[in-house]
C-alpha cells in the first residue's frame, strides 16, 4: 500500500515540478497572473473610493480593504484558471499522453496540477498583499481570521482549477481557454464587487443573493475586518463546490483517457 | 533587353542576412524564354531566398537580375506585372472561398470588371476546382490549395512563373496533376517556369534544365541527362545471401568494374560497359554458385551528381519513390 501511495505522491509532485518549472522560467506565463490583480486593485480602489461615501456604505477598514477582499477572490479564482490553460496545452501538444502512460493512478495528474495552482497563487498573494498593505490597506482581523481567509482563498483556487481542468481534459485544446475564463469571470462579477450586498440593485442583487461566490466574498471582507463571519456555512458551501468540481475533473480525466 | 522578353538573367546575385552568412553567395544563371528551369537543392541551400529576390520581395545585397526584361531592383512594379508566383506557403485566406480569392486577385491586378468573373471561372475550371470554388479554403485539401495557388498566380497572364517547392506535401496524384499543368503552361502558352524543388524526380521529370544549389552557390547546371552523364555509368549493388560470401561476391563483381562505396553488408561496382552487362553479372554469380538476397541496378541520379559535387546526399533522396533505382532480384540468384 505504501508503495502505491509513494508512486502516487511521486507522480503528483513530478507533474507539479514540471508545470512550475515552465511557469517560473517563462515570464509570459507568470506575469499576467500577477499583473491583473494589481491592476484591478489600483483601478477600483483608486477610481471608485468615492463610492464608500454613499449612504448605507459601512465598512470600517476602508475602501481599499473592501476591494482587496474581491481582488483576493479574483486572483485565487483566475489563478486556478491559468493553470487550467496549462492542462489544455499539455493535452493538446502530447505531454498529456505521456503523463497518462507514466502514471499508475491518473488522478495523481489532477493532484499535480492542483499543487501547481497552489504554489502559483501563493506567489500572487504575496505580491498583491504586500502592494495592498503599502497602499494603505487596514486589516482588522487577527492571525486566526487571516489564516481562515487564505485557507478559504486556497479552496477557491482549487475549485477554479478543478472547473478549468474538467474543461481542459474534455476539450484538450488551448482554444478552450475562453470557455474556462469567461464563466469564472462572469460569476465573479455577479457579486457585490464595488458596494456591499445591501446596496446592490436590480437583477444583479437577485443573482448575487444566490451566487455562492457572494457568500465567500462577504466572508473574505468580514475576516479582513475582524467582523464575525459565517465560517461554517461558507466553508460548507466551498467544500461542497470542491467535491462537485472534483467529480467534474475526474470524469474529464476519464474522457481524456478514452481519447487516447 | 526590354519588351516582351520572357527570360530570367542573373549575374552575381547575392543576399546577406543581418550579421549572418551569405544566404545566396553570388549566382549566375540564365533561363531561356519558355523553358522550365529546375532549381534543386537541400533545405537551407538558398532556393527560396533566390526566388524572393527574383520576385522583388527581397532586395539583393549584391549582383543583378533581370526578369522578363526588367531589372528586379529598379523596375519592381514592371517585374511584378510580368510574373506570377506560387511561393512555399499556399498563402490563402481560410475564410474566403476559391471564387472570392479569384475576385480579389483579378481586381487587384486591374482586370476590367467585365472580365473578372469569366477569367476567374476559366482558371478555376482549368485547375479542376469548379466543384469546390464556392467552399471556404479552410475546407480544401493540400492539393486543392496548391491548385488554387497556381490559378491565382496565372490571373494576369504572366510571362514568367515562379514556383517555390510547389508539390511539397502533396500526394502522388496531386503532384502528377500539377506537373501536367506546369508542363502545359510552358509548352502551350510559352510561359517561362522557374521551379525550386528538393525532389529529384520533380527536377528530373519536369525541368528541361536544372541548376543544383548548395550553401548559396550553384554547384552544377545542365540538362538532367548531361548532369548524370558527367557521373558516368550505372552501378550495381548486391547483398550476398550469406555474409561469409561477401568477399567472393565482391571479386565477381569487380570483373565488371571498380568498387563503389556501399552500405554495410552490400557490395557494389560501377559497370564499365553500361547496363547491358547486367545479364553477364547474373550469369557470373550463378556460375560461381553465389546466391544474393538482393541485386539492384543503380542508374546515376541527380543525387549522385550532388554527392559528386558536394560530398553529401541531397536530403530526402532516399525517400523518393521512383528514383533511378530498379530493384531486380529479391533472392535466389
Amino acid at each position, binding site marked *: 500500500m505504501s508503495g502505491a501511495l509513494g508512486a502516487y505522491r511521486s507522480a503528483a509532485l513530478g507533474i507539479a515540478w514540471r508545470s512550475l518549472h515552465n511557469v517560473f522560467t517563462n515570464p509570459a506565463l507568470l506575469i499576467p497572473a500577477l499583473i491583473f490583480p494589481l491592476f484591478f486593485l*489600483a483601478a477600483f480602489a483608486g*477610481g471608485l473610493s*468615492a463610492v464608500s*461615501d454613499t*449612504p448605507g456604505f459601512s465598512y470600517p477598514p476602508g475602501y481599499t480593504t473592501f476591494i482587496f477582499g474581491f481582488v483576493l477572490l479574483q486572483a485565487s479564482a483566475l489563478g486556478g484558471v491559468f493553470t487550467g490553460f496549462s492542462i489544455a496545452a499539455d493535452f493538446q501538444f502530447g505531454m498529456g499522453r505521456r503523463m497518462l502512460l507514466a502514471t499508475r493512478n491518473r488522478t495523481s495528474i489532477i493532484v499535480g496540477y492542483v499543487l501547481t495552482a497552489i504554489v502559483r497563487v501563493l506567489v500572487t498573494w504575496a505580491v498583491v498583499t504586500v502592494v495592498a498593505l503599502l497602499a494603505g490597506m487596514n486589516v482588522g482581523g487577527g492571525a486566526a481570521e487571516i489564516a481562515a481567509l487564505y485557507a478559504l482563498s486556497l479552496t477557491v483556487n482549487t475549485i477554479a482549477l478543478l472547473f478549468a481542468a474538467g474543461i481542459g481534459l474534455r476539450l484538450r485544446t488551448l482554444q478552450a481557454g475562453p470557455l474556462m475564463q469567461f464563466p469564472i469571470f462572469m460569476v465573479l462579477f455577479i457579486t457585490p464587487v464595488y458596494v456591499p450586498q445591501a446596496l446592490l440593485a436590480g*437583477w444583479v442583487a437577485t443573482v448575487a443573493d444566490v451566487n455562492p461566490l457572494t457568500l465567500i466574498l462577504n466572508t473574505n471582507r468580514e475576516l479582513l475586518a475582524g467582523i464575525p463571519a459565517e465560517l461554517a456555512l461558507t466553508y460548507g458551501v466551498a467544500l461542497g463546490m470542491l467535491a462537485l468540481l472534483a467529480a467534474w475533473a475526474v470524469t474529464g480525466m476519464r474522457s481524456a483517457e478514452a481519447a487516447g | 533587353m526590354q519588351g516582351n522578353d520572357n527570360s530570367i538573367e542573373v549575374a552575381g546575385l547575392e543576399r546577406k542576412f543581418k550579421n549572418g552568412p551569405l544566404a545566396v553567395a553570388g549566382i549566375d544563371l540564365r533561363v531561356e524564354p519558355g523553358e522550365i528551369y529546375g532549381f534543386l537543392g537541400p533545405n537551407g541551400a538558398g532556393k527560396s531566398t533566390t526566388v524572393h529576390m527574383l520576385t522583388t520581395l527581397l532586395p539583393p545585397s549584391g549582383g543583378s537580375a533581370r526578369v522578363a526584361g526588367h531589372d528586379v531592383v529598379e523596375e519592381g512594379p514592371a517585374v*511584378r506585372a510580368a510574373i506570377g508566383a506560387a511561393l512555399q506557403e499556399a498563402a490563402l485566406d481560410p475564410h474566403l472561398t476559391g471564387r472570392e480569392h479569384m475576385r480579389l486577385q483579378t*481586381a487587384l*491586378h486591374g482586370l476590367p470588371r467585365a472580365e473578372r468573373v469569366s477569367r476567374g471561372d476559366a482558371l478555376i475550371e482549368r485547375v479542376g476546382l469548379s466543384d469546390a470554388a464556392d467552399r471556404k479554403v479552410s475546407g480544401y485539401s493540400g492539393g486543392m490549395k496548391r491548385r488554387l495557388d497556381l490559378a491565382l498566380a496565372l490571373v494576369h497572364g504572366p510571362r514568367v512563373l515562379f514556383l517555390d517547392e510547389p508539390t511539397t506535401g502533396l500526394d502522388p496524384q496531386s503532384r502528377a496533376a500539377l506537373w501536367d499543368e506546369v508542363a502545359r503552361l510552358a509548352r502551350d502558352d510559352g510561359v517561362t517556369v522557374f521551379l525550386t524543388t528538393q525532389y529529384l524526380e520533380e527536377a528530373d521529370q519536369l525541368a528541361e534544365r536544372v541548376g543544383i544549389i548548395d550553401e548559396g552557390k550553384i554547384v552544377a547546371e545542365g540538362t538532367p541527362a548531361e548532369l548524370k552523364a558527367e557521373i558516368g555509368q550505372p552501378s550495381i549493388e548486391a547483398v550476398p545471401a550469406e555474409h561469409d560470401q561477401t568477399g567472393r561476391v565482391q571479386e565477381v563483381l569487380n570483373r565488371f568494374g571498380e568498387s563503389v562505396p556501399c552500405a554495410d553488408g552490400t557490395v557494389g561496382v560501377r559497370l564499365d560497359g553500361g547496363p547491358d552487362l547486367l545479364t553477364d553479372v547474373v550469369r557470373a554469380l550463378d556460375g560461381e554458385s553465389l546466391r544474393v538476397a538482393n541485386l539492384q541496378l543503380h542508374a546515376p541520379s541527380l543525387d549522385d551528381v550532388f554527392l559528386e559535387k558536394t560530398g553529401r546526399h541531397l536530403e530526402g533522396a532516399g525517400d523518393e519513390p521512383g528514383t533511378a533505382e530498379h530493384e531486380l532480384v529479391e533472392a535466389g540468384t
Partner: protein
Amino acid sequence: MSAAAATLGRSPLPTQVGSLAGRSVLRTLRQPAMIVPSIAFPLFLLAVNSAGLEAATNIPGFPTDSYLTFILAFPFIQGALFATMNSGQALAEDIENGFFNRLALTPMRGSALIAGQLGGLVAIGLIQATVYLSVGLIAGGELAAGVLGVPVLFALSILIAIGFGGIGMFMAIRSGSGETVQGTFPLLFVLLFFSSISLPRNLIAEDWFRTVATINPVSYLIEGIRSLFVSGWDGEALALAFGIALALIVLSISVASHSLRNRLVRT
C-alpha cells in the same frame, strides 16, 4: 502576351480599397468567434456595472440619477478595443500565413491595404454601436441628445474604433505575430480603466487616480460619448472627443503606414 495581360494596368485606388475592404468585411462576418465576444462581453460588463454601481448616483454631485445612462459610454470604448485586437489579429494572420506576400506581388498600394482593413473595422463598429445603443435604451438608459445625437454618436464611436484599429494594425505589422497583438490587449484595457469611465473626474477621490485620469486621453473620448447620453449637447466635451479621436487616427495610421513601408519590402 495574353489578351488578359494586354488590358491590365494598375487598378485604381478605389477599386483596390473596395476589394480589400470587401474581403475584410467578409472574413470578419464569417468569424462569429470574433464578433460575438466584442458585443457580448461589453454588454455583460455594462449590465453588471450599471446594476452594481447604481448606488454611486447618490454621491453628491453625480450628474445623473441613472448609472446605466452614465456608464453607457463604456461598451462603445471597450468595443473599440476589441476592434483593435480583431483588425490586428487579421493582419497578423495574413503576415504569418504568407497571404501578405501574395498581396505584395500584386499592384496593390500600401495605403489600399490599410484603408481596406479598416473597412471591416467600420462594419463591425456600426454593428456594435447599433447593438449597444439599442440594448442601452431598451434597458432604460437615456440619450439626452435625442435623435440628432445618434449620427453624432455613431460617427464618434466609428472614429474611435478606427483610431484604436490603427494601433492594432501597427502592432500586427511591426511584430507579424497574432500572439503579440493579443498580448497588447490587456495594456489597452488598463487605459480604459484608469480613466473617468466609472465616475466623473471631479468625483474621483484619490488624487493620484484623478491625475492619471486627467492625463489619459481615453477619459476625453469617454466624456464626449457620455455627454450625448447624460447632458445632451456639450460642445466642449464633443470637441475634445472628436479632436482626440482624429489625432489618434492620424497618429496610429501614420505609424501603421510607416511600419507597412518597412514590412512591404518590395523593390
